[in-house]
């Protein structure tokens, strides 16, 4: 466990030493939520979601958070390639660190970074726009953690399987696009057209978005959080398996 902690410490040291990266990390979610509310605030009125009427902006807040998580976990996962090409992966693997230590540290770091961004976004939404409340944010926290872990698991699994940066980038771009449009990110599930509604059943993002939205808007948890927890475990195990294979061939 101490090795995992050292690896996480290393990741954060590198991040904190890069002022530009830090600035980007803090500014991006704040700008994103601000622009979103500013641009979309009055475009669509209210919509009905699970029996309650909410403004479209409120409906979309969990979606914007999930979209941020998608891009952050994708970007952070891709950093494994930087470590591979810079030979740092070889150095790390020549120490007492095991492949599992490395993968677990990546999962935790990814989750922490994306969670920080999500919380920054919700906090700035609360402080600047003043439309939400602390309780909704607290309720949204568990599904956001699950979402961060699941998305990290998905991207690290792909990375372990595809091995080259070009194959990874191509696959991730296509897959992410399909996942985004076949999940209830921009509209409720009921309004989703065929065949997207059919694809949404097998899309892990559907359960991630639904569990986050229900906990944020309704301040409760339903079956979708359990489904996303199971999906999360599956992808974490899958990422450990595929990444372990990749790390054997550095």
């Amino acid at each position, binding site marked *: 466990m101490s090795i995992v902690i050292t690896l996480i410490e290393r990741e954060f040291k590198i991040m904190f030493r*890069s002022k530009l990266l830090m600035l980007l990390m803090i500014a991006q979610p704040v700008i994103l939520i601000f622009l979103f509310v500013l641009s979309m605030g009055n475009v669509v009125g209210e919509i009905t979601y699970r029996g309650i009427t909410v403004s479209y902006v409120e409906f979309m807040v969990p979606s914007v958070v999930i979209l941020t998580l998608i891009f952050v976990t994708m970007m952070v996962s891709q950093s494994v390639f930087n470590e591979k090409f810079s030979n740092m992966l070889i150095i790390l693997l*020549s*120490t007492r660190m095991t492949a599992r230590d490395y993968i677990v540290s990546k999962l935790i770091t990814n989750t922490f970074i994306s969670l920080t961004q999500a919380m920054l976004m919700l906090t700035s939404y609360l402080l600047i726009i003043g439309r939400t409340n602390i309780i909704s944010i607290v309720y949204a926290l568990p599904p956001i953690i699950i979402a961060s872990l699941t998305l990290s698991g998905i991207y690290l699994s792909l990375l372990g399987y595809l091995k080259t940066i070009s194959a990874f980038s191509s696959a991730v771009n296509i897959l992410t696009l399909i996942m985004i449009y076949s999940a209830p990110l921009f509209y409720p599930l009921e309004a989703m057209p065929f065949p997207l509604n059919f694809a949404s059943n097998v899309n892990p993002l559907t359960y991630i978005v639904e569990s986050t939205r229900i906990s944020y808007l309704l301040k409760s948890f339903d079956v979708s959080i359990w489904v996303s927890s199971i999906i999360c475990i599956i992808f974490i195990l899958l990422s450990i398996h595929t990444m372990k294979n990749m790390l054997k061939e550095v």
Partner: protein
Amino acid sequence: MHIRVISITKTYGASVRAVESLSFFINSGESVALIGPNGAGKTTTIHIILGLLKPDEGEVYIDGVNMTDEKESSEIRSRIGFAPQNIALDFFLTVEDNIELYLKLNGLSRAKRRERTKRILELMGLYEYRNRRVETLSGGLARRVHIARALALDPELIILDEPTVGLDPVSRRLFWEALKGYIKESGATLLWSSHYLEEIERNADRVILLNRGRKLMDAPPGEIVSKFSRPVLELEIPNEEVLKSLTSRFGGNYVNGRLIIDDVDWDDLPKVIASLSKLGAEVRLLRWGSKSLEEVYLEVMS
């Protein structure tokens, strides 16, 4: 620490055989150099020894520990200092952070980390740069940090993949002085690869020559040189008749008034001298030398 490599084979993809049935043994305290052209299998061999790559066949043991087993080899890896071919450092971190993190990942306590980092930075002449970010260092300094990190562990086995590539001659000499000083003090085993053959001739106890993943030779550099080296005779004789006679008997090239007889057989040497005496040659210059490891290497590889 001793290394036993038993018949390892590694193939990349369907057809690229990087290493084939390679076996050798390295004794504790020995300095062994792996040489060979690019793609000979040096780096693959090093990675298999370190347990970074799994061989398709064969096994590697370091002090009796099977390096192909991740769990079994975990402890022993913290006794091996390794520096890969290309500089591998966290460029946003300071020199000191790079070394300390490496030591921490190898399970060293805070006090030991501090002490060893300070000592190695002083030994490698890097102490004044300890708080500098690696990204601000020159290439030569960064390479010194890269090597210093491997030595900071106080390793019993040092594995260096082309350690002096990119260093100027003075830095290379300083590097070898520091490394030899360390090895003399610690008794560590050294396995390294290099393309600088004069460096190998000076610093290796034994040379393993690889080509296309196979071992061509395994012997001390002096032995390889003497095995392949034949004396070169360079004669300056003012008499053309004598020169012609010598050329017809022993071959050689007539260059700038001198007869150069390459690859003289040791057994022929007394005959040449006897002929010179018989012909009553007035010899103005008789020079002879043997080949360098580099010349032998080029000859073997061609």
